């Protein structure tokens, strides 16, 4: 893919969100993401040639092997092993804690929706079968993996309908989705990793999934305020998933707050990597296209 002569200026997420529906946003993200690349981000592994068969009425003309027609004067269509190969699941955390955003910014859930839409767009364009699920204490929404035309539209509709509520249950959700992945697949979990048990059940479930050969990626969006990087005066703070527990505090005068948050997520990242899970920490203030490029660069370097 040829690089464009001038990269479009990347929009901050809160401005990106104003472009319109997820379809437009996802297309914009992908366009911006791909614009600066020298080659395709990754190759889908779902369109492996499996052989020819005779043309039947209703087959798509684009699958006709015209070279073979030229040699044989008969119509044959190519068959691919996509459905027999990789399935990808986008698993989106839709718990109450995801409905939080920095002042003037977008919420983590919205960031996850846009990111998931862009990833679905990319993976479907590469020929992968992409499914979608969301969870709070349980899996609430599930769209099975498909690669057909029009599936992206269905996924975007489901993503738009996501609403944040309830408490975390990522471990259980991963277990449920794992059971749906019938063969080698890819799980991209978009979550803030704020679990009741500090993520122990989740890490175990992800580890098992990785152990059976699936590719597991955890993308963690987090706001500036949650990282202790934004000015916050004295308040009575509460976790949206545990609103009855108030913590009267003054983050501005608590230098250890940012450090404790960083330590928690560093530990989470280390545990995930130990189990072969790819961990991608993102900030919701960061343009999504930029985040995807950094991620791709990190994957490329690791490869």
């Amino acid at each position: 893919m040829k690089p464009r002569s001038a990269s479009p200026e990347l929009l901050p997420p809160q401005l990106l969100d104003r472009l319109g529906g997820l379809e437009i946003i996802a297309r914009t993200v992908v366009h911006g993401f791909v614009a600066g690349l020298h080659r395709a981000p990754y190759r889908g592994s779902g369109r492996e040639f499996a052989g020819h068969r005779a043309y039947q009425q209703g087959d798509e003309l684009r699958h006709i092997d015209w070279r073979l027609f030229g040699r044989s004067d008969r119509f044959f269509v190519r068959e691919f092993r996509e459905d027999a190969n990789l399935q990808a699941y986008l698993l989106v955390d839709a718990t109450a804690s995801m409905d939080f955003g920095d002042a003037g910014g977008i919420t983590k859930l919205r960031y996850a929706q846009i990111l998931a839409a862009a990833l679905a767009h990319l993976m479907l364009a590469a020929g992968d079968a992409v499914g979608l699920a969301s969870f709070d204490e349980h899996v609430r929404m599930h769209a099975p993996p498909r690669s057909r035309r029009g599936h992206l539209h269905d996924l975007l509709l489901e993503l738009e309908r996501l609403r944040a509520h309830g408490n975390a249950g990522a471990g259980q959700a991963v277990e449920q989705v794992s059971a749906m992945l019938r063969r080698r697949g890819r799980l991209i979990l978009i979550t803030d990793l704020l679990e009741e048990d500090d993520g122990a059940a989740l890490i175990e479930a992800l580890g098992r999934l990785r152990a059976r050969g699936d590719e597991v990626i955890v993308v963690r969006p987090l706001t500036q305020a949650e990282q202790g990087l934004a000015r916050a005066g004295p308040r009575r703070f509460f976790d949206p998933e545990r609103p009855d527990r108030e913590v009267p505090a003054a983050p501005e005068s608590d230098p250890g707050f940012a450090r404790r948050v960083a330590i928690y997520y560093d530990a989470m990242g280390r545990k995930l990597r130990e189990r072969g899970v790819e961990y991608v920490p993102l900030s919701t203030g960061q343009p999504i296209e930029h985040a995807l490029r950094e991620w791709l660069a990190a994957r490329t370097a690791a490869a």
Partner: protein
Amino acid sequence: MLEFGRPAFLFAGAALALVPLLLHLIARRPPERSPLPTARFLTPDTRTALRIERRPTDILLLVLRTLFLLILALGFAAPRWVAARTGTIELILLDRGRGMAGSWPEAVDSARALVAAAPDARVLVFDTTVSTLRMDADDDAAWNTLRSGGVAGVESDYADAFRALASATDRTRADSARVSLITAPRWGAWSEGTSLVRESAWPGAIRLIELPLDLPASPLPASPFTASVLGAGTEYASAALDAIGVVLGSDTATSDLLLVFDTLISEADGASLLERIRGGATVIIAGGSVQGALSEVLPWRSSDAPGALPPVTFDDGAQLDDVVSMRPGTPLAGAALIAAGANGRAAAVSTTHGQGCLVFFAGSLAARDVALARGYTAALRRLARGCAGPAGTGTRGSGTDVLPLDAAARDVLSGPGLPREVALAAFEGERSGRALGRVLLALALAIAVVETWFSHRRRRL
């Protein structure tokens, strides 16, 4: 400049305006709740988090509330914007009424002499109308013209003359005057004009240049008794009685008429008064309280029945406009009704006892406002007649009795020393200027609306 009819409201407003400030300083509000998913990593800091947190809107609300109270108080203080007037001017009131006929040339000469001493002085020539003249003391022709014009065929009206003092200073913008009154002084039952004089110049702010009265004075009814006045407000009552021909004596033991005003009459005093009544004296009790034997013969019983409302009308037609502290109660059976209020309630009663008479007035006759009221001397005259009843049909006391100024009243009016300045605002009657009360009350209402909006908005944030 701003003048206030009820300045006490300003002090009340200033005190009330401190209330929002105090509430602002002591008000506590719990800090806001804020969601933060990573709250578990915060160190609880109750002391810092639960401190007072003020928002800029609090200052705005404080200002609005304080302004509201201050402007409300200002509105109730009856403010008037009066064009600023300063300075003192010489004014000469020259009486040209019928009673000055015999002494008119002398009066004009007196005025000329005063103008010569104060060249900027203005001469107000009055009878029932007032003409303001700027006269040059050396202008013989003008003075001759004035002298030859003679007097009016009507009695002069002091009230109009005094009221004209304010307008006479319009161009100079003076707010006070040194006033000389050239007249053949007479008092007709405290006319409305003399009320103005007494309120502003009692005693001694007006220089009185007396000339002989050229009117046949109404014959004074022969005073049947000598009188003594006891208690508060005696100077007003004394002057009034003197003006109606009642001889004031200093020996209460020999006075035939005793007026006891606003005094606590002890048992001993009451017994003494009772003896005097039995011996033929007339005792008038107005205000105060009575103890002992005298209270048993008092023709009045206090009760919850409402008191008389002004004006009080006497059985001889005299009418007293301003009365104060009218006592609730009812006359006892057998008491003679002397006066009643506008609501029909008894105001004055009398009863005979022995050879004398006890008169009870259910109110105060010593207060300054009453003593300066129209009909005061007429009221005293009727009360003094006691149980003798009214004299004929009776008349109101203003304007029909022409009595020469008596020594007592003259002394009270002139007072000791030289005349001082008289504030002209006192002669304006209803104050001039622009009333601002309603405007300020409307402004206070507008501020209240704005405060309510901001307060509601703040609660929603």
